[in-house]
């Protein structure tokens, strides 16, 4: 009986240790590089989130949802920012999946990020769900 208990305890310990490893690897050079690019770009994008020109899409991207909120002279620059941001985001999702040895997780990671970006968006920013834009 004692042996049984010990083995059960050991099994439980090993099982919990395996569960505790539930962290995704996000500290690779590639991921850090993408992250710092996005961080630098955020300073430029933030005013456009606030004005409603740019919103957080349901698919983990950003979108120019109201170009008229941007002065004509700046419109092209904002479009460029949005395109660069989306390229970085796609690369980020792909790199996280790859860094964890599961490239097939990319879509799941994208969906997780999409939910978290929207969940954590600041009040006043526009977010998309079910094809509809709404203001937080």
């Amino acid at each position, binding site marked *: 009986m004692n*042996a049984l208990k010990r083995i059960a305890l050991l099994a439980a310990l090993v099982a919990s240790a395996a569960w505790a490893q*539930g962290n995704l690897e996000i500290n690779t050079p590639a991921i850090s590089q993408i992250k710092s690019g996005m961080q630098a770009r955020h300073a430029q994008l933030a005013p456009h989130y606030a004005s409603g020109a740019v919103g957080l899409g349901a698919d983990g991207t950003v979108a120019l949802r109201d170009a008229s909120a941007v002065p004509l002279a700046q419109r092209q620059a904002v479009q460029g920012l949005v395109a660069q941001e989306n390229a970085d985001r796609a690369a980020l999702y792909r790199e996280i999946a790859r860094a964890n040895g599961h490239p097939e997780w990319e879509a799941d990671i994208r969906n997780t990020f999409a939910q*978290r970006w929207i969940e954590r968006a600041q009040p006043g920013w526009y977010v998309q769900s079910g094809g509809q834009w709404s203001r937080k």
Partner: protein
Amino acid sequence: MNRALYALLIAAAMLSGCVTINIYFPAAAAEKAADRIIDEVWQLKKEQGAKPEGKQP
């Protein structure tokens, strides 16, 4: 001793169960990872733990 062998088999089954689980997408871990990256990109948490002395006066 049959009993110990039985328990060993159960332990082995539990272990292999864990290995199997890791093949599925770890949604909770992904959420945590996403939040950490969002914190940094949006700079929601200043002093990302990079400075040991913590907050500046």
